[in-house]
């Protein structure tokens, strides 16, 4: 069953290139992403019941537990919403002559290869294969970032490719050290198997493991957009087509963070304290939030602003993992889910704004609520959500993390963190709310074709982030709780 997750996208990807009819492509894409979502939800049920899933094929490389199923569910659900939204988005692009029909085929081919590589990264238990998959996510998405072939998008694609490839290469150095630390401890069959590594964590050689953590945290941290390695992220996220920005921000960053979290578990278990990893992750997390705060205050383009906000939220997750108290880890995982849903919704909404107003600049966009009443409202509420205003879910997880910082007795970190969050809220309010309130002339160009499916998708995401703000289903709670136990090394 689980292997279908890997087979379906890889079989479907070439089909997109062969199909001539555009409508057929759209339908195939919907079928593929919907079936991926259904399978992953069924697997989620199995994982809740049995705590992990493993198949015997190919040396048992396929492995899912509560932690990886959270990442997997985010991939498939956001993937489904992206594929619903893409239809209207691409039709609009086509109607405005920005892309050709051939490019639609390339778009879907690359998008499903991209989704395949991310699913692979989340469902294997071998760090080596996971590394190969994460490197492949970059290669699959480069041309999606450079999709419009403008100067800016090509520049963004080049930076993305070079910085992330080098970053990932450094992570591989870390993986080699991880293996070296396990020499004489694991058998050949358990090569880089993180289940075994985590089980025998106490016996691993500490010095090599420390080096491994540093290299992996820097390497995967590059891909996760943590400062100061974040420089590729704003360009890539703002230049990509909006559904792809949503995937990059809501899904890809989590994949890289997942790699770091797995390593942290092993290292902390070996050192028997979280001080070493904690200091590093807290510092890098606070730095990310700080840099994002400063730049959000002065940002001129709304998609870049959202990209910096992704850096901020990845920083918050890193901070939570660095604290390594049960409550903080729980909050961090919940935050990962909330950020994915909220941020992808916002990027979908910017797609409509970008099409209608034809510009990326904040001060050229005026009166969004009047021109786009439905999407505009969703965008407006989404901005409150991403800034951490109740009753949305990001507020709940941020509050959990803040409380855990103070319970842990780290008052300076806690105060700095709250201050930075306040600055970010100010920045978002100061810059983006102008788009809604100021009355401008009706933008030139024809109005958008109605994209009912896409609008419904945005509304659904809004509903999700609204309800999870004050109500958490029991299944989700136990899933996050189990994942937290895995990270803490209790299980």
């Amino acid at each position, binding site marked *: 069953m689980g292997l279908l997750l890997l087979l379906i996208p890889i079989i479907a990807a070439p089909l997109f290139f062969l199909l001539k009819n555009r409508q057929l492509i759209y339908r195939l894409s919907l079928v593929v992403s919907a079936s991926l979502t259904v399978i992953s939800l069924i697997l989620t049920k199995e994982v809740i019941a049995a705590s992990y899933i493993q198949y015997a094929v190919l040396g048992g490389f396929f492995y899912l537990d509560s932690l990886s199923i959270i990442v997997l569910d985010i991939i498939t659900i956001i993937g489904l919403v992206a594929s619903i939204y893409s239809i209207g988005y691409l039709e609009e692009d086509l109607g405005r002559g920005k892309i050709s029909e051939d490019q639609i085929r390339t778009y879907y081919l690359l998008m499903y290869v991209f989704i395949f590589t991310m699913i692979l990264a989340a469902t294997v238990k*071998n760090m*080596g*294969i996971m*590394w*190969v998959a994460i*490197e*492949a996510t970059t*290669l699959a998405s*480069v*041309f999606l970032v*450079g999709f419009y*072939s*403008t*100067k*800016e998008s*090509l*520049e*963004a*694609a*080049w*930076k993305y*490719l*070079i910085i992330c*490839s*080098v970053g990932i*290469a450094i992570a*591989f*150095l870390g993986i*080699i*050290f991880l*293996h*070296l*630390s396990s*020499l004489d401890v694991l058998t050949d069959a358990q*090569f*880089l198997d993180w289940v075994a590594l985590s089980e025998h964590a106490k016996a691993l*050689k*500490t*010095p*090599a493991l420390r*080096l491994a953590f540093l290299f992996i945290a820097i390497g995967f941290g590059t891909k996760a957009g943590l400062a100061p390695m974040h420089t590729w992220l*704003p*360009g890539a996220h*703002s*230049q990509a087509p909006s559904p792809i920005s949503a995937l990059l921000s809501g899904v890809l960053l989590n994949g890289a963070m997942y790699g770091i979290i797995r390593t942290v578990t092993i290292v902390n278990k070996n050192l028997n304290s979280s001080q070493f990893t904690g200091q590093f992750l807290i510092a890098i997390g606070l730095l990310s939030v700080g840099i994002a705060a400063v*730049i959000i205050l*002065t*940002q*001129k383009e709304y998609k*870049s602003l959202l990209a910096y906000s992704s850096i901020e939220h990845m920083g918050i997750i890193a901070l939570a993992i660095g604290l390594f108290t049960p409550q903080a880890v729980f909050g961090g995982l919940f935050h990962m889910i909330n950020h994915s849903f909220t941020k992808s919704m916002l990027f979908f909404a910017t797609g409509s704004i970008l099409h209608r107003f034809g510009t990326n600049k904040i001060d050229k966009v005026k009166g969004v609520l009047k021109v786009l009443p439905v999407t505009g409202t969703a965008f407006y509420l989404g901005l409150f959500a991403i800034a951490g205003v109740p009753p949305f879910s990001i507020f709940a997880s941020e509050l959990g993390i803040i409380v855990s910082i103070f319970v842990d007795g780290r008052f300076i970190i806690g105060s700095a963190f709250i201050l930075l969050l306040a600055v970010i809220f100010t920045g978002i309010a100061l810059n983006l709310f102008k788009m809604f309130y100021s009355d401008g002339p009706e933008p030139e160009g024809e109005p958008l074709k109605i994209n009912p499916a896409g609008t419904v998708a945005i509304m659904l995401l809004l509903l999700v982030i609204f309800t999870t703000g004050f109500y958490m289903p029991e299944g989700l709670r136990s899933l996050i709780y189990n994942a937290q136990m895995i990270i803490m090394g209790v299980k």
Partner: protein
Amino acid sequence: MTKIYLDLLPALILFSSFILVSNKRIASYIRTFRFQSLLIAVGAGVIGLETGRIDVLLVCLLMVALKVIYIPNLLNSTFANVTYKVEKDFFFNIPILIIACCLLVVFSYLAIPTADGIINVQVANLVSAVLIGLIFMITRKKAFGQIVGFLVIENGLFATAMFATQGLPFIIDLGMFIDLLTAVLVMGVLVFRISDEFDSVDVNRLNNLKG
């Protein structure tokens, strides 16, 4: 006997990285890369023969086919369409770079043996080769320098992994090769598009996205 070869080859690979840093012409970048890949292929061959593992020997063959023959030829033919032949402006001049690289070697010798003595001279040499690849990458202004830099970093990693583990599992090697090949093709296509759009492959011109 093989121990001598296994100690010698990483040193030579490190040496070839120094050659690379002192190269100025694009054609010699590619030649040095070819030479370095050949050394790693020989290393894979020696390890394969010593351990008697067929898959490591297969890696050696793949290495020769891909990195000694195919990728350098691909780079040469891509490069034939680009106008510049000699890099004139570096961010630092070459003697300073060489000194910086020497410091990097010292650094990795200091940093790595702290790991319980299980990490040896070979690994220290190869990690320095990776670091030198990074230096090379950030000091070249043209897109080509960055591609070659990436390949050299990858070479260094591959060699580190191979010498440290006496041959990775084949599936990971295969994954790395596929990734590498795709990366080179993607970079090649992207360089073409960039030089079309910007009339230049100078990465300093890529400065539209700021802030």
